[in-house]
């Protein structure tokens, strides 16, 4: 296999990669943390885009399981004890089920009728999928695997179960008294087509025969699961796991709906589904971070929540270790699939990317060799001795000189003071051991200001940089790797006789360039997000404001101003800005953390940072150090008004007038 093939050619593991290749690239690192996915009980799986949600849910897909079973090298990554399930599902977008919000059902009971139709269409779709999936697995899976999963290998048993289902009052109408699997699938397809004709305005009303046999949400599925078990198609402890894909889209539509389409009525049906006491079937719902599930269902009692962001956001060292292990495993699998030798004991990330530069090295690279003193912004009024000392220091250690400039600004407020302190400055007080935290907190901002004054970009390279810029997002990690590989491939001299070999490590500039391109691409992805143009202006405005703040903070008083903090109460008071923050977080352009503010009067707060991969694009610092920028929602709104991100609306104008109005 040519070494010029990019192992990260396709960054998404679930999209664009052939299902036959999936077993080779799938990383099982997270499986022990998400075991409820493969067990009885409903699960809500949430995570930012790129955290691996789809990849995990795809293990419930029968085609993926079949691909694993056929694979010679990679076995199915879930322990046999947790393999006793059959998966089926519905994609809320692709199934067009949400299109029922577009139709008018007339009369006072319009909402109830639309919910009934939504439920029956949902049931029809999932039941059809379940029967087809069983048919496929029975005819394609090896017998011993079927036995492991507790699924019959006898197709006649499935026919028998379907026949029994057709004789029940609940499902008889749906499957049209079918006596074989083929007949049942045809009946369900016809029912589906009738609904589709209604959705597409080819018929004006739902036919009476459907109203006569309409089913409540989940009811036929529970019954089907029981019949499948009692007919020995499924063992008594084999679970029916139903994935409801694109649930996050329904939640997003509901939260942003101002058009009166009433998506909430369908969410309440899904809530009914998971709060049902009937446990013959378990549901898997993908949701977005911060999504508030309104309804009767309760976490723990009705469903378990797995938040992939929280998994990675545990205690600092554990979090770093988990993501590092995940990234390394993904990296190794991609290399191996590309035909490269991978030795388990090796740290391929270190071999390929090497060490990242220290702060001093990075500062030196930003400053360049000629005229290092240009990194300083010395005031005319400062005594010559102080200026000379800092300039002299810049020739030896630019980082220390820049920190010294900030120290002078912070500690000396008047000219007289400065003259008095001039001798003391010769001892470089900011370099003393008791100042180590002061230095540590200010190194990133100092490097940023050095780069800005030198007209350079901060160079990022090395394993530590690649991982920290990935921001615990495996998609970003894959994107960075893809771009570094691409830069290398573009630089290969193809005219020589010798075959190109993948460098270990990649050169600094290949990594630096790859990271820069990846940053630009992640930024360009903002326009592909929901309301992407507005979101783009929002993220740009934040990025630009924070960059200007960091660059202009000559005293380095706010080294943590690469993020913002807002109090929860204020965020809740402005739905428009909350929506923007939520969208940007869900799509992986911002990262959200809880924040305990210094001033308790602010109340509970949250802080947002731009995703680290955007740091090269916006020229921001990566590390979250010290306090973020404390903002009031009104100030943020002012920024956004200027940038055309929000509109001045009546309610907010009203608010302005209400303030201080005694009457």
């Amino acid at each position, binding site marked *: 296999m040519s070494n010029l093939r990019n192992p990260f*050619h*396709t960054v*998404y593991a*679930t*999209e*664009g990669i052939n299902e036959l290749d999936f077993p080779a690239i799938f990383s099982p690192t997270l499986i022990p943390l998400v075991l409820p996915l493969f067990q009885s009980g409903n699960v809500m799986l949430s995570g930012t885009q790129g955290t691996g949600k789809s990849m995990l849910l795809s293990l419930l897909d029968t085609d993926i399981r079949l691909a694993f079973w056929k694979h010679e090298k990679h076995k199915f990554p879930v322990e046999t004890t947790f393999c006793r399930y059959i998966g089926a599902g519905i994609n809320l*977008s*692709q*199934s*067009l089920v949400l*299109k029922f*919000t*577009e*139709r*008018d059902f007339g009369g006072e009971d319009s909402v109830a009728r639309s919910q009934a139709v939504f439920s029956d269409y949902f049931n029809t779709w999932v039941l059809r999928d379940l029967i087809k999936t069983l048919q496929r697995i029975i005819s394609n899976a090896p017998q011993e695997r079927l036995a492991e999963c507790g699924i019959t290998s006898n197709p006649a048993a499935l026919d028998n179960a379907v026949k029994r289902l057709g004789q029940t009052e609940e499902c008889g109408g749906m499957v049209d008294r079918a006596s074989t699997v083929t007949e049942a699938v045809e009946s369900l397809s016809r029912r*589906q087509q009738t609904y*589709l004709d209604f*959705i*597409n*305005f*080819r018929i004006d009303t739902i036919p009476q025969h459907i109203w006569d046999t309409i089913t409540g949400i989940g009811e036929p599925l529970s019954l089907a699961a029981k019949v499948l078990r009692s007919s020995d198609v499924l063992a008594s402890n084999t679970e029916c796991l139903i994935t409801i894909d694109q649930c996050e*889209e329904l939640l997003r539509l509901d939260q942003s*709906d*101002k*058009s*009166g*389409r009433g998506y909430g009525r369908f969410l309440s049906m899904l809530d009914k589904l998971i709060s049902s006491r009937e446990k013959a079937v378990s549901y898997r719902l993908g949701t977005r971070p911060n999504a508030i599930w309104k309804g009767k269902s309760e976490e723990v009692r009705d469903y378990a929540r797995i938040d992939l962001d929280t998994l990675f956001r545990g205690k600092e060292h554990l979090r770093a270790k988990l993501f590092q292990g995940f990234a390394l495993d993904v990296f190794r699998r991609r290399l191996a699939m590309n035909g490269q030798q991978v030795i388990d004991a090796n740290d391929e990330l270190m071999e390929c990317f090497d060490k990242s530069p220290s702060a001093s090295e990075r500062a030196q690279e930003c400053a360049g060799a000629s005229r290092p003193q240009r990194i300083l912004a010395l005031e005319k009024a400062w005594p010559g001795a102080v200026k000379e000392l800092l300039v002299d220091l810049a020739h030896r250690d630019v980082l220390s000189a820049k920190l010294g400039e900030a120290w002078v600004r912070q500690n000396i407020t008047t000219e007289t003071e400065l003259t008095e302190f001039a001798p003391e400055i010769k001892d470089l007080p900011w370099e003393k051991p008791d100042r180590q935290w002061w230095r540590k907190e200010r190194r990133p901002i100092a490097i940023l200001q050095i780069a800005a004054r030198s007209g350079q970009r901060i160079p990022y390279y090395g394993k530590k940089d690649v991982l920290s810029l990935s921001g615990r997002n495996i998609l970003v990690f894959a994107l960075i790797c893809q771009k570094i590989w691409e830069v290398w491939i573009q630089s290969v001299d193809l005219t020589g006789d010798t075959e190109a070999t993948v460098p270990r490590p990649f050169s600094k500039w290949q990594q630096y360039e790859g990271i820069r391109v990846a940053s630009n691409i992640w930024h360009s992805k903002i*326009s*592909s997000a*929901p*309301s*992407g*143009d*507005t979101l783009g202006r929002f993220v740009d405005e934040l990025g630009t404001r924070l960059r200007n703040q960091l660059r202009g903070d000559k005293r380095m008083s706010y080294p943590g101003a690469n993020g913002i903090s807002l109090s929860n109460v204020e965020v809740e008071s402005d739905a*428009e800005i909350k929506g923007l923050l939520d969208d940007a977080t869900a799509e992986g352009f911002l990262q959200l953390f809880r924040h305990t503010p210094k001033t308790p009067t602010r109340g509970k707060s949250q802080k947002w940072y731009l995703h680290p991969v955007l740091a090269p694009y916006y020229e921001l610092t990566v590390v979250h150090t010290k306090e973020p920028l404390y903002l009031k929602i009104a100030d943020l709104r002012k920024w956004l008004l200027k940038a*055309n*991100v*929000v*509109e001045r*609306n009546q309610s907010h104008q009203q608010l302005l007038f209400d303030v201080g109005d005694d009457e």
Partner: protein
Amino acid sequence: MNSPYRPSGPLNWLLGKFAAMPRWSIVGTTSAEKRSLAALKQLCNCHRLANAEFLRVEPSASRRPNRFRESTIRKLDARQKNASRIAGKSIQHHPVDLLCREEVLIRTCKNCLTSCGTNLIIDISSMPKRFFFPLISLALRSGMHENIIAVYASPAKYGATLAEDPLPWNAFPMFGATPLTGKGLKLIIGVGYQPLRLSEIVNGIRFNPENVELLLPFPSVHPGFVKNWEFVRQIRLEIKQLRDSAIKRVPTMNTSIAFDRIVAITNNGKNPAVLAPYGPKPVSLAMCLYGISCQDGSVPVEVGYTQPQVYSDSYSLGSAIDCDGNAVINANCIRLNGNNLYEI
């Protein structure tokens, strides 16, 4: 493949061929674009207007922010006055929200068509695809219109910003299909100026890269071709394995050839397909007609879009003018003497 002759050409020329049909109804759009009234004006100038039903597509009230809202509404008001000056009492205005529910959209389109006679012109120049796809479908299905011509007026030039904040991929009203899976499933993309979240569908697992085809408008004029190739580049970023042969050149203004191309790509409608009309309107019209034709033949085809929530008030500027000083209006006859000319 034997296609019928499908008359097309400049509107004035085509109307000349319909000398026996003196009066025509027209359904068009009152828009911020100047070209939206070009066909109405030409029809009035040759005294062949029976009645005009014009959709006034308002910026969506449910969409905030919209930095073009106020300027668009001002332009809509001015254009509506102008339309009334041109057509007098023969024109009816039908206000409708850009992102209205499909039920409302279909009702409005039906209202427009109910007032129209046997001979119908549908002006798609400034009509959002969300409206003209179902409108044409309803017109072809109604049986009230013996002759139907779709017209498209070219602008003098396009604005710098066209549209913003596209919604997720969704089938047009009346053009949804499911389940669409299988190895033969084709994705046919009309190459336009803005890919508008198209990556969402391109990235979907439903498509094999070998089954993706691009309809590239050719020849395209400067600077349009630059945008077209940038669009192709964006698709290539998503589908790295896209074959060079996937790029099929189609004449920018020839709906008939574009239609035949689609028929050929889908093996005469045997392959199910998803059509993404991001290209020029005449090519989108071909996709629309192909979709309708497939529905009539029960072939699963979905035609959809990532509908922008905001359109620029300067989407296009002016009207293109031919050497005789007339607006350039391309007309395609899609039904003649009760016979649909675009069928598989």
